[in-house]
């Protein structure tokens, strides 16, 4: 599989990253190289093998429906660059 410039631009856009021209070149090469290497999984003897979907065997890990208030609500906003009326301020969202 060959990675095209359009493809890497599309992927970067899905990940909300902007790549500079020189980065695009570099990442195409890196991605191509890593994918060639990763392709080895296509040769693995995995017919009739189920996927592992989580890292654990346990099922049904649930929590009780009981309210516990977080003890440092002030701290939740302390790292925001712009807060107004207790809310995070962002550029206007247009639908």
């Amino acid at each position, binding site marked *: 599989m060959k*990675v095209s410039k359009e493809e*890497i631009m599309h*992927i*970067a856009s*899905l*990940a*909300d*990253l*902007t*790549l500079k021209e020189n*980065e695009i070149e570099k*990442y195409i090469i*890196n*991605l191509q*190289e*890593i*994918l060639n*290497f*990763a*392709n*080895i*999984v*296509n*040769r*693995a*003897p*995995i017919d009739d*093998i*189920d*996927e*592992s*979907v*989580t*890292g*654990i065997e*346990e099922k049904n*890990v649930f*929590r009780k429906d009981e309210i516990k208030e*977080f003890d*440092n609500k*002030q*701290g*939740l906003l*302390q*790292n*925001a*660059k*712009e807060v107004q009326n207790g809310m*995070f301020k*962002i*550029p*206007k*969202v247009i639908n």
Partner: protein
Amino acid sequence: MELYELTVHELQEKLQRKEITSLDITESYLKRIEEKEPEVEAFITKPEKREDDSTSIPIGIKDNICTRDIKTTCASRMLETFIPPYNATVIEKLSKEGIKVFGKLNMDEFAMGGSTEYSYFKKTKNPWNLSKVPGGSSGGSAAAVAADMVPWALGSDTGGSIRQPASFCGVVGLKPTYGLVSRYGLVAFASSLDQIGPITKDVTDCAILLNAIAGYDEMDSTSAKREKIDYTKAIDKNINGMKIGIPKEYLGDGINEEVKQAILNVAKKYEKMGAKVEECELSIAEYSLATYYIIACAEASSNLGRFDGIRYGYRSENFTNLKELYKNSRSEGFGEEVKRRIILGTYVLSSGYYDAYYKKAQKVRTLVKKQFEKLFEKYDILLTPTAPTTAFGIGEKSNNPLEMYLADLCTVSINIAGLPAMSIPCGIDSNELPIGAQLIGKGFNEETILKAGYALEQELKFRQNYKPQFKK
């Protein structure tokens, strides 16, 4: 002998006998930091001098574990000023045991890397040879323990990030079974692989620290509900009759000859101590590294989506609308390797490639688990090198991502299978750089690894024989 040279169990004895106070310990370490930190550069946030209660023990924390009111940066520009409003569960647990946060340690950005060169802030040096990397991603933790700047430390391990730097720095590093230690408050890299674990001067300290951090946490759905074990009880050198397998795939191509010899020497020592050692097969090993990078990057690409410059983290100055705020903050806030992995992860999850990469990797994962299960029907532990080489030079691999990934060859399959594994120093190479042996155990069977590790430690007396020389 200075206090900073002692292990924690030695310090605890002195504290119990009231020969020293906790303040003596921190003062000794602060003095050592003043002396060694300029050349090692292991800390992102150095500990502050403070009046402490008389019995507490300090600990260095990798800077991807959230500490309330103490900056937690993940060695990223993205979190350069981030102050968590909450503590990770491990920090709460440590605090209950009287173990207090003593500085935050350098790492590869968001734990992505094997040399700590991908830190946004500084390059940590290997205390054995300052021109070499300390390994990574928990390079700051391993280097700080090796340089006696902290008595012990916590690291995190997604594909080898505790064990490989422990190996490079000649200290003990344990990646516990997935689910043994709560991940709540560990900034996620790859959720199904990440584990927090101890980096210590010796195996006894490792068991003590594991006692403090292991255990069920209702805040982490992947945390295991199991009976509490006292790991220090495993510290006993009788390994007579223990069955040890050596997967031949990890002693073949790509493994440095001196490393190979050191591992074979370990095998001999074990035989001498009464263990049964034999070669075995782990044929799925060749698929592990690719599988690891597919799964880890896929999860990372999603986990790192939350860094958008809105609620916390770096926000670009340069935007006119929301999309630009997102894109520019992320592009300027993340470093090159992080972006590379986000791109790879996004790619393997994107439509058209999911089945070819991600789905296949999840199947290989099942196979890896099965092969290990099979081996553990026969063996109590498996023995491999921790890393294919000893510490490499700073700058040697940082521009070649794939080559850097190969440094994880021996460690990643353990994360894929969720097993516990420990790196323990087992000798030095001709450049006087430490070599690590990796002991892999059955799930939730840390005791056997600790037992085998302790026996080897007593046999080799590595700490007594070798010390980091801070070679320039």
